[in-house]
């Protein structure tokens, strides 16, 4: 008998074991000790084999089954079909945490030129994929309705199936936007920070402007329903304790989902709260604690009826743990190769691997651009980035029990530490993910019906008390 590589971590309820293919079970130190030296009873070997942690011989049934699961966990789609386009960096709002470093509405020289547009459309024409998801970011993309209309019309012709997401602050609601929304593959995503007063403070700077925004949002929800209109909050460190309130505000809006997202250390947010942002570990611990409290609140609300709400981080983590190929979300996957299936095209026509990468470039911190519409991909730079976007080879990650489910975020490390070779253990990303995965596994291991109900809803979309995973406790006694 042979053991596959495995990782472990002590949780409050015992020792959690996992392997690179994402299998897991719980036991205690006695089994761990015997696994470490290979001194296992036949029943223990049999258990480990069934659980996906061992095989008889390379090539046998359990070996190949492990190989297949490992492949599913790691395979990254090889076709570029998700593009973020930034047609302008200008914006008619000035949020205090603006992470993209927007420029004023009247400033010239921060929009796509006719030439950039032509190059972008030609770039799309040459994609291999027959499907596309295109997200318009800004600045405020609806300042350039003309570009949006032309790009969308082009893509409707070019692709068999396309989806468009317009990310807008909804400071205005032009009729041209409503006309665009008449096409049912056009979605709208906006920011709502929760209670009106919080939204005013962070984003609009005035109650009147918040009321105007809320009227726009209400009108869109009434016309197109929550399936087509998505919104999410950005939470500043001083407001972490207000997460339950934010959830309640979302419930009042009739939302079925929320993405609890703390402000990242980009753009204006860096200047706003330099000291809080700088102590990453302490800040991460505060976020995890606030998140846990908020989720208990959300779980309770969901069992009390009314509209069920799902939280995006939790759904994503559960998908990474259970689903076979949950490898599309670039913020939580590994390896996370650049420009493989997702790409950002900035206002100046340059390519970036992600939204955060262009944010760092915008403040002159580091140039993470990986080419441009004019010159094509910079393959050397892509290769360099990719070597640092694999937790499978990072010394801080290889022994981590959550490695199979987690991601890796070089760009956040760069933003917060100015370098990428820091030990991950103290970094914001690692500490937050450890805390969040601890939260999820404690829930999974806890066998509490309320938790089970909520976890199933977050994983599969419908809330149910039916167990969706088998027994995974091994009692070595």
């Amino acid at each position, binding site marked *: 008998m042979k053991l596959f590589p495995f990782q472990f971590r002590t949780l409050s309820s015992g020792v959690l074991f996992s392997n690179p293919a994402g*299998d897991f079970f719980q036991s205690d130190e006695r089994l761990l000790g015997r696994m470490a030296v290979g001194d296992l009873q036949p029943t223990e070997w049999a258990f480990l084999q*069934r*659980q*996906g942690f061992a095989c008889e011989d390379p090539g*046998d*049934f*359990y070996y*190949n*089954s492990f190989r*297949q*699961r490992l492949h*599913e966990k790691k395979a990254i789609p090889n076709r570029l079909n998700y593009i973020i386009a930034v047609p302008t960096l200008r914006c008619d709002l000035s949020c205090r945490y603006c992470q993209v470093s927007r420029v004023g509405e009247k400033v010239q020289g921060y929009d796509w030129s006719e030439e950039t547009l032509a190059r972008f459309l030609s770039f799309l024409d040459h994609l291999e994929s027959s499907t596309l998801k295109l997200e318009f970011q800004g600045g405020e993309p609806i300042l350039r309705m003309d570009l949006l209309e032309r790009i969308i019309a082009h893509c409707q012709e070019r692709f068999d199936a396309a989806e468009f997401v317009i990310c807008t602050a909804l400071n205005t609601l032009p009729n041209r936007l409503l006309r665009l929304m008449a096409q049912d593959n056009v979605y709208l995503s906006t920011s709502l920070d929760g209670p009106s007063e919080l939204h005013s403070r962070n984003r609009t700077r005035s109650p009147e402007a918040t009321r105007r925004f809320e009227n726009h949002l209400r009108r869109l929800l009434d016309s197109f329903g929550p399936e087509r209109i998505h919104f999410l909050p950005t939470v500043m460190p001083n407001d972490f304790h207000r997460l339950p309130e934010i959830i309640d505000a979302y419930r009042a809006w009739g939302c079925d989902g929320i993405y609890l997202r703390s402000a990242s250390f980009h753009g204006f947010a860096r200047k706003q709260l330099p000291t809080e942002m700088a102590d990453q570990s302490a800040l991460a611990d505060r976020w995890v604690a606030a998140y846990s409290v908020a989720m208990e609140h959300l779980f309770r609300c969901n069992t009390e009826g009314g509209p069920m709400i799902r939280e995006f981080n939790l759904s994503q983590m559960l998908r990474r743990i*259970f*689903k*076979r*190929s949950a490898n599309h979300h670039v913020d939580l996957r590994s390896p996370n190769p650049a420009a493989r299936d997702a790409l950002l095209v900035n206002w100046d026509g340059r390519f970036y691997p992600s939204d955060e990468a262009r944010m760092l470039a915008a403040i002159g911190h580091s140039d993470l651009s990986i080419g441009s519409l004019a010159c094509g991909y910079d393959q050397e730079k892509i290769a360099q980035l990719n070597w640092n976007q694999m937790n499978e080879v990072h010394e801080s990650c290889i022994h981590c029990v959550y490695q199979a489910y987690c991601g890796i975020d070089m760009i956040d490390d760069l933003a917060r530490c100015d370098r990428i070779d820091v030990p991950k253990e103290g970094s914001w990303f690692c500490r937050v993910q450890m805390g969040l995965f601890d939260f999820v596994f404690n829930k999974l291991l806890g066998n509490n019906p309320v938790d089970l109900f909520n976890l*199933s809803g977050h*994983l*599969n979309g*419908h809330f*149910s008390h*039916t*167990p*969706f*995973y*088998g*027994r995974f406790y091994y009692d070595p006694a």
Partner: protein
Amino acid sequence: MAGFTMIRHSFQIREHDAAREPVVFALKEMTFTAGGLRIGSPYGDVVLAAMAGELDRGDILALFPEENRVVRWFFSDSLSHTLLLTEACDQRCLMCSQPPRPHRYPFWKLYAQALNLLPEGSQVGLSGGEPLLLKKELVPWLLEMHRCRPDLTFHLLSNAQHLKLGDRDWIEPLREVLLWGIPLYAGDAERHDQIVFKKGAFETLLSGLNLLARCGSRVELRSIVMQPTWTGLSALADFVTRHLRFIDYWALMQLEPMGYAGEAWEGLFVDTSEHFAPVATALAMAQAVDVATLLYNFPRCTVPEPWRDRVCASVSDWKRRYLPQCGLCREQSVCGGFFESYWDRSHQGFQRIQPL
């Protein structure tokens, strides 16, 4: 020939010049006469002891002159067709609806003629017994059929006990057109071997499945929901969702009250209309890891609404019946109904039948 597939559709020939080779043909002309049903055949007209309406134009028939018998092999109005190749089996599953007997039906040439008459894109079921007991003849026949009719697909019901590494040579070329229907009844050797009454069956099955996975074959995994598998369903689901994710889908099946299952009905049947929870757990576990599932032989109304989209109208139309109360149901047209043989057992059957 007694006990051949679809015995209820075979007919005695009354007026026919015997002692010629068997022949296969598609039924074109038929008239009902006082003596029986007169049909055209390659040997001229024959009259069958059959009722009007029992045969249809387009049915594919095999005529065995020496035995004075016509057998309907394929229905004209169906997209799937099944050949019973043998009744012999090396397992003796305790709920077998067609207990093994040493009868084989190696009519390879006739089968080839029959397949050549099928409409484009048909699926051909190959069933037993255990078809792979005829592996030596079956494999060259399959390869030849695939060469002549690349549009046909095959659904082979096999216990996967007779596969060796060398079989890659024919499994791989057929992987796109051959769907393997393979039974697995438990997640552990002891329980599975008891159910199929063969020691070592589980281990052999795993190595067979291993081979199919490596060949990229399409597999329909089949498990019966009944008392001997009931308490092990969750462990079985755990095994399937971890180790058998390469399958196309996992079919959970209710019993067909025939053969051993008919005889031992009371000791085997589980009324899933009243007790569905363990089935729901198995389905939820499969859903959690994106393994597709289907429910065979479950009347629609006996399945809770969240899982009803898994129900297949799997009972063959010629075996299918409905209960009197089904007349009120709005979903009867998409429901598989009940096996004809369920009639004698209905008082010990599903207690909650409620028209939808």
